[in-house]
């Protein structure tokens, strides 16, 4: 019998790695991570990005994602890394990819990788959550109750069924954002959160469940959450931009990874 066909293994090697920050905005915040990944692969194709492919019977473009905001939440700080088979200018890449994606899925910046692991530079998220129909003092009181608690058990329906976990310990910071103009912000309180990325993950809606547990905070309309930043949480409570090291590397003329 003839030998089993072997997959072609002459895929071109990776010569450049580029890290990209992108946003999920407006109505397209309802894009799931899988949806985004498919759309991004096509954008790579349409933009003529010389992406490298994996070996095997079904070669896949070399794109790896660092985490993903939950479906329905917007984000200004999502990250991925691209393996390329030819070198490109990162700024040209931003323009080409952004033009190839639907408005609302926006590519914001790209830097050439200078070593390290992108995923290891992220352990926390900064969230802003708009709560239409909630008064400022109501939220203020709920936040205080949340801060005072040491443990807040919440439940979420997962594919494996209902799961119970603590929503308090992962929250590094929880504050109400004062609204500059009270007229403009009337009837819409804003919550600011820094949450550690732990397992099981604590998402913005889990924190809102926590506020319901500690302060009976009921939301008349679905909230709108936006991830503002991701990075490593410092002792001072700030987030270190995960692309900072690569940007510094490029500035110092260090060899790319």
């Amino acid at each position: 019998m003839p030998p089993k066909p072997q997959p072609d293994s002459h895929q071109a090697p990776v010569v450049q790695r580029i890290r990209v920050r992108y946003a999920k905005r407006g109505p397209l915040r309802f894009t799931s991570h899988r949806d985004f990944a498919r759309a991004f692969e096509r954008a790579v194709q349409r933009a003529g990005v010389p992406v490298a492919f994996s070996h095997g019977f079904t070669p896949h473009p070399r794109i790896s994602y660092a985490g993903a905001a939950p479906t329905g939440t917007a984000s200004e700080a999502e990250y991925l890394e691209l393996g390329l088979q030819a070198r490109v200018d990162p700024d040209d890449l931003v323009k080409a990819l952004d033009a190839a994606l639907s408005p609302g899925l926006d590519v914001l910046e790209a830097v050439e990788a200078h070593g390290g692991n992108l995923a290891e530079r992220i352990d926390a998220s900064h969230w802003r959550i708009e709560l239409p129909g909630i008064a400022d003092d109501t939220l203020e009181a709920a936040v205080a109750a949340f801060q005072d608690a040491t443990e807040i058990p919440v439940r979420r329906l997962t594919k494996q069924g209902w799961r119970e976990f603590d929503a308090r310990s992962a929250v590094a910071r929880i504050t109400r954002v004062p609204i500059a103009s009270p007229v403009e912000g009337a009837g819409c309180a804003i919550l600011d959160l820094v949450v550690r990325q732990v397992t099981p993950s604590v998402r913005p809606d889990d924190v809102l469940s926590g506020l319901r547990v500690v302060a009976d905070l009921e939301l008349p309309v679905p909230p709108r959450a936006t991830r503002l930043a991701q990075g490593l949480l410092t002792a001072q409570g700030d987030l270190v931009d995960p692309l900072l090291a690569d940007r510094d590397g490029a500035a110092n003329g260090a060899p790319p990874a």
Partner: protein
Amino acid sequence: MSTVASIFPALERLLPLVGKPIQYVGGELGATVKDWDAASVRWALMYPDAYEVGLPNQGVQILYEVLNEQADVLAERTYAVWPDLERLMREHGVPQFTVDAHRPVRAFDLLGVSFSTELGYTNLLTALDLAGIPLASSERGDGDPVVVAGGHAAFNPEPIADFIDAAVLGDGEEAVLEITAIVRDWKAAGRPDGRDGLLLRLARTESVYVPRFYDVDYLPDGRIRRVVPNRADVPFRVHKRTTMDLDAWPYPKKPLVPLAETVHERYAVEIFRGCTRGCRFCQAGMITRPVRERSITTIGQMVAEGLEFSGFREVGLLSLSSADHSEIGDICSGLATQYEGENVSLSLPSTRVDAFNITLAEELSKGGRRTGLTFAPEGGSERIRKVINKMVTEEDLIRTVVTAYSHGWRQVKLYFMCGLPTETDEDVVQIARLAHEVIRAGRAATGSKDIRCTVSIGGFVPKPHTPFQWAQMASPEVIDNRLRLLKQAIMADRSLGRAIGYRYHDGQPSLIEGLLSRGDRRVGAVIRRVWELGGRFDGWSEHFSFQRWVEAAGQVLPDLGVDLDWYTLRERDELEVLPWDHLDSGLDKEWLWKDWQDAVSGYEQDDCRWTPCFDCGVCPSMDTEIQIGPTGRKLLPLTPVRSGLKVG
């Protein structure tokens, strides 16, 4: 007229509460949003199934693009919403909306609905109801859109005659523009004679069927006595439309690329339309005649531009029997060469059982990706294959699958039908023998036990405008019993049976499809009752309820002197007036009857592409002709697809 506002702010609040919200958001690549006030004619186009099924539909994509290319025409799309969103929309008063600009469907001039299958009828009712459009066309007023049905099921729209205002048979590219022109003129003239005035203008074209202008009389035994126009100038018969020059209509040029996951993620190009293989069960093959090929050069151009525009990495070369294109060899080798090393995969829905198919499949897998191989012998015994005119011998089949196995395929799929006219238990059990033979021969040829085949069984449904339109269906009990016997026969030899996968559907859904396919206007009451009882998404096994259909039929049909069995299990005779006799697919009814008689006696019919005309009637009555190659041209040497980043 003031601008129609987007309902998105109201919808947006519901989206966090439903499954896969992205399907309701729009924003696809290739989508068009136009200025409402600048348009003189506005179409809402609906595919009456979930977004994931509806978005890839070629018919809707083509019409959407053709219409939006007109400067003063606006076309937007709408799909069936899942029950979770339907419930919330009712609760919060959000109407059926388009996904493009989220405009309410009721604000459009026309609602065009494309029916690939009759199982979408209940979804039409949901959409109408959510839109605030009266279900009965007789209750609609000047503020309601004109509801137009198209697609293959429109060749017998009688079961939905009460719910639609009009139906168009056949190809839509040109028809949709002619309807648009009529609506434009009628609006510009100040809407003379209102809604009926417009419908009359449409009916007089002789290619738009307006059910309300026809009366149906019945005989005491329930059969139809006659169907006649009730207005002057309305034609006795309505004719199907045929787009002759496919090269002049190279759509979709800008395929819709969804964000949500859909059933087909590929750029699809129709390489020809029509089929004259003459499989007697196949409605598509009968109603889309004659064969009209798209030229190799247009196909090459469409693939290049479609991939460039969309970023898809898969191309589907579609038609009813793609290996039959007169230049398929050159098309496949040309495309495979063009895209070698580009990580683009090419697929050809392969149903023809011959070794040539494997040559093509090998050619297409040059780029690295290997698609599955499916063959459709359709019938298990030589005898039944003669009845259905599927001219495949057992030797052909064995030779073909052995070739596939020895060229490295480890798995082939074989497709069959159950419940065919004249079928006996033995005909179905023969499928097991055939599958055993396939495995035995495959093992002998490869020396390996590591080969498999999957036997997939579909239920036969007699369709209008086919030689089997007179046939009785087998009851679900008979079907289910045959499927059980087949399973036993496959597993009777455990060694061979282990290598055979077995997939089938039980007989109940087919019976309902049969009711809807060959039903008349009285069936409309059943559809409405099923919908009132909660029927939605009948094409989905998890939503379909046979019991609900039986119950609804039992509630409304006896008063009309007929019942479910009467529509499905009864054989019709030659002189019976069929509900679709006044709808002209071009096929000569006498020829269809003769072919039906040939079927019963096991005579086969050749393909008129390669043998003389056998007078099915289509070409002379429709003033059309077979258009096939070879053109002798080659796939154009196109410019390299990849030439660096596209910036600005």
